[in-house]
């Protein structure tokens, strides 16, 4: 894994200013999960319309740069998607989204946000 790629300026910029960070009071779907390995914890709040299309999504949490950046990018990606489309997102797509090589141990950090989103939408990861 190349360090300069993993902790690039762009990556750290997202970590410093994550998109969609916060809560939604009147969320239709919400969930939380943690990664026992490192204690990362993520809460997801989703608002959907009558067509089960995501109109808004926010997250809160505490964790490493990889999990936080993944949550930022993934919440960006799913906004406007239908629940069924969200459930079809594959783990590989999340890793691809991050655009950085993630080592085998840290993959769990990268995939935690996806797991929480799936949990919120009613499907276990």
């Amino acid at each position: 894994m190349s360090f300069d790629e993993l902790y690039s300026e762009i990556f750290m910029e997202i970590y410093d200013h994550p998109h969609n960070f916060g809560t939604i009071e009147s969320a239709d779907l919400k969930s939380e999960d943690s990664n026992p390995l490192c204690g990362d914890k993520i809460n997801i709040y989703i608002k959907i319309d009558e067509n089960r299309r995501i109109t808004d999504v926010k997250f809160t949490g505490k964790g490493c740069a990889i999990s936080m950046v993944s949550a930022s990018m993934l919440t960006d990606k799913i906004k406007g998607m239908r629940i069924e489309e969200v459930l079809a997102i594959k783990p590989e797509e999340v890793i691809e989204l991050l655009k950085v090589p993630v080592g085998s141990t840290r993959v769990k950090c990268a995939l935690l946000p996806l797991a929480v989103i799936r949990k919120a939408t009613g499907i276990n990861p």
Partner: protein
Amino acid sequence: MSDIWESIRNDFPILNRRFNGNRLIYLDNAATTQIPEYVLDGLMEFYKNSNANVHRGVYALSEEATDRYEKARETVRSFIGANRPEEILFVRGSTEGLNLIASSLGKYLFNGKKGGIITTIMEHHSNIVPWQFLQESGAELIFADIHDDGTLDYSFLDMIDENTKIVTVTGTSNVLGVIPDIKKIARKVHDAGAYLVVDGAQLVPHKEVNVNDLECDFLVFSGHKMVAPTGIGVVWGKYDLLEKIPPYMGGGDMIKEVHKYNATWNDLPQKFEAGTTNIAGAIALEKAIQYLKKIGMNKIEEREHTLTKMGMEIFDRMKNVTLYGPHENRASLFSFNIGRAHAHDVASIFDSLGIAIRAGHHCAQPLMERYNVTAMARASLYFYNSEEDVAMIEKGIEKVKQVFRT
């Protein structure tokens, strides 16, 4: 002096490995230590020449394997100053050892009776969870606290009374590097008629230990934290006590007679060694002890003290870095956090420099809660680490601070 330690490094082939173009700087010794060629050769030699199952065979090869296995037991006995070789039980490691003690001593003490078990907030999960199992049998689990600097708050000694059955404490904290005063605890425990268990996983590899001096009733430790392979560890218990408590696992070798609905137990130590044990592991542990003794446990302790002092100077200098644990009288490990950076990011950035450190809760979640953190990064040393290795901790911290602008 430094020449000795330089040549010692050559005993460990793995220290020549390179990662991402960097020399491996192995600072995860509290998790597992590296193995010198002397021990690896010993392990291989046993398999090449003397491998057979022990105790049951009547042929010469099995007798030789048995003799070597029992000689390894004697080497361990002498290493920790135990009175009798039967007091040495070979197990997989400290975790299995603590489970054995909790199960067998628990059955003996809590058979329908209530009583207290005191442990500490800084214990490894392996010295918490096995005792939790006994809550079903009437045990009440009580946690001794620590001071903010990590040192044990000895006021728990006043809680020890006739209701207390067991006190179990680490010989050295795997997170804080705190070295509790076992003797001081032992006297109070024994005055109350209770038993003292010591988790020696982080103690025995680093300094000379004599169980009679420690005055505890049980001690456990793991081979793989003292230059032996994984899968071999030791329980030491007082002979009379091991005689009284029931066996842990049932199976071959631990029995005297088996009938359809009952069985009688073999003598010590076989009573606690059901099934085929890690025979070659015991031989390798003997080799590891020989290797450590050749250097000298006092020399090892001195060497680690020097390296630890060097490390402390780095942490004293660093701003915005939280080091957990006491300043004085600490073992050779450093658990820390750097500003806002998550410990896993810290470990990844150290890794990019070839430095292997650990990050996470270190199997001590109650302690993480006590400090209100989810994770810590930890650099832990052994005698084969060099001054350059320790200096790299500073390089790692600087790089983290640069990336996280903290």
